[in-house]
C-alpha cells in the first residue's frame, strides 16, 4: 500500500508561514491499495486538496474511514469533490453509536445552518457503515478497528496488506488514569490494533510539560506516545495531530525530545508532514519526504 499524508494538524487548521514545513491542514491520510481502492483516513481539511489532486485517478469506489466526528476530522468532507460526483460510490465508516446512526450524526454538520448543502442531497452514492471490530476485506486489504480512549466514541484503524500493517490512532490518550510504564500491554487502550504494527500514526499533540494542563482532553504527550509505541512493539512511529500552536521550529524540538526517549531507534521516529509518503509492501517499508 502507498500512504500519503494530506493533513496532520490537530484541533484546528493552522495555515501560515510558520507552519509551511509540516503543514496546517487537519487530519487526512490517503492509503492507496495494491488492488486500486483508495482508503481515506479522516476527513479533516486535508481531504480538500486530496480530492482536487486525485480526482482523475480515483477508482469509482472509495472508502472514508472516520475515527470520530470532532470537526477537525470531519470539516473537509463537504469540500471533497468526489462527494459531488454522481459516478462515485463512497463508503463512509465511523464509530458506532447506540443512540444515533452515523449518517444522522454526520448530517448534524452537513446541513444548514452549519453547511449550505444537506448530506442527503450530495450527488454521489454514499453508504454508511459502523467501523468494523472484526476484520473486513476491502480490495487487497483487511481493515479493522477498535474503540480507543478519547473524548466521545472514537476508534482507531488497522489496515493490513501483503503482510504489512498500518495503524492510525490520531486522537488517543492511553495514559489517562494509568501509568503506561507499568500497565500490562494488553490493558492499554489501542493495543488491540497497534501491536507489532509496521507503521503507527499516533497522537503526539503535547510536549510533556504541556500535557499536565490538558489531562483528559483526549490527546497524548510525547513521552506517552513513545511509551505506547514501544510497549506495543511498533516498528515505525509517525508523530501526528500536531498542536496548532506548535510552529515548524517548535515541532522540530518535539522531534528531538522524542528521539531522546528512543535513542536506540531514533531513525524509526518521525514527524508527519503534509506530502509525506510511505511505501509499504513485501520488500519493506520506505518513508519518503519525512
Amino acid at each position, binding site marked *: 500500500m502507498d500512504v500519503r499524508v494530506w493533513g496532520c494538524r490537530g484541533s484546528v487548521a493552522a495555515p501560515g508561514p510558520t507552519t509551511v514545513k509540516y503543514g496546517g491542514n487537519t487530519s487526512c491520510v490517503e492509503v492507496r491499495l495494491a488492488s486500486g481502492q483508495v482508503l481515506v483516513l479522516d476527513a479533516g481539511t486535508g481531504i480538500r486538496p486530496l480530492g482536487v489532486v486525485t480526482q482523475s485517478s480515483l477508482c469509482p469506489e472509495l472508502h472514508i474511514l472516520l475515527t470520530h466526528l470532532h470537526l477537525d476530522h470531519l470539516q473537509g468532507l463537504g469540500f471533497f469533490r468526489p462527494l459531488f460526483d454522481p459516478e462515485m460510490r463512497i463508503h463512509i465508516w465511523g464509530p*458506532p453509536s447506540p443512540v444515533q446512526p452515523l449518517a444522522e450524526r454526520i448530517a448534524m454538520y452537513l446541513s444548514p445552518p452549519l453547511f449550505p448543502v444537506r448530506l442527503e442531497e450530495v450527488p454521489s452514492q454514499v453508504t454508511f457503515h459502523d467501523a468494523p471490530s472484526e476484520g473486513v476485506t476491502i480490495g487487497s486489504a483487511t481493515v479493522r478497528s*477498535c474503540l480507543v480512549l478519547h473524548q466521545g466514541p472514537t476508534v482507531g484503524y488497522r489496515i493490513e496488506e501483503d503482510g504489512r500493517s498500518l495503524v492510525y490512532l490520531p486522537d488517543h490518550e492511553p495514559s489517562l488514569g494509568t501509568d503506561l510504564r507499568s500497565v500490562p500491554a494488553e490493558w492499554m487502550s489501542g493495543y*488491540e490494533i497497534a501491536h507489532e504494527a509496521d507503521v503507527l500514526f499516533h497522537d503526539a499533540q503535547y510536549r510533556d510539560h504541556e500535557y499536565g494542563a490538558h489531562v483528559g482532553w483526549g490527546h497524548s504527550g510525547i513521552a506517552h506516545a513513545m511509551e505506547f509505541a514501544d510497549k506495543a512493539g511498533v516498528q515505525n512511529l509517525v508523530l501526528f495531530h500536531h498542536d496548532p500552536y506548535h510552529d515548524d521550529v517548535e515541532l522540530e524540538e518535539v522531534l528531538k525530545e522524542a528521539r531522546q526517549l528512543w535513542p536506540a531507534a531514533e531513525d524509526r521516529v518521525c514527524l508527519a508532514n503534509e506530502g509525506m509518503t510511505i511505501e509499504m509492501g513485501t520488500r519493506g517499508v520506505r518513508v519518503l519526504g519525512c
Partner: protein
Amino acid sequence: MRAEHLPIASAVADGHYLDVDSEAPATGAKPLPLILARELASNLATPMFVIDARGYLVYYNDAAAQLIGKPFGEKGEISAAEFGALLNMKTVEGEPLRRRDSPSGIAFMQRRPAHRRLYASGYDGTEWLLHATAYPLFGTNGEMSGVVSVFWPVGDEEATS
C-alpha cells in the same frame, strides 16, 4: 437475554457456580470498557472485580485483594468458578449462593444489573456481610465487554436493623 442465548456461558446454571468455556484465559488485548473499568477500580478504596466477556475474573483492585488474600498481580486471571469458590458466597440466611443467583452471575448471564446482600468469606475464613452490586458493560458498538462487581461492607447498625 436468557442464559441459553449467550454464546460464552454454558447453560450449567443449575450448578453451584457459573461454568464457562474451558479455554485457557486469554492473554490478548482488552476492550476499552474493560480497560476503563480496571482504571476506575484501581483508583477506588472499595472492593471491585472486573470480569471479561468469557466469564473470567481479569482484574480486582487492592481493596478486593484484602478479601482474596493476594494482590491481583500474584493471583492472575481466574475462571468464574474459581472466583466463586474463593469467596464462598452465602445468602443472608446462610444458604450457599448459587453463582447464577449472585449479582455477578445475574449481570453476566441475564445482562442486567443486580444487587443483593450476601455473606462472603475472606481468604482467612473471616465472614463478611456485604452489599454486592454488579452490572454489565456494553460498549458503544453494542457488544458486552464484561461485568463489574462491587462489594460494600454492611455496617453494624444496618446489619442488626
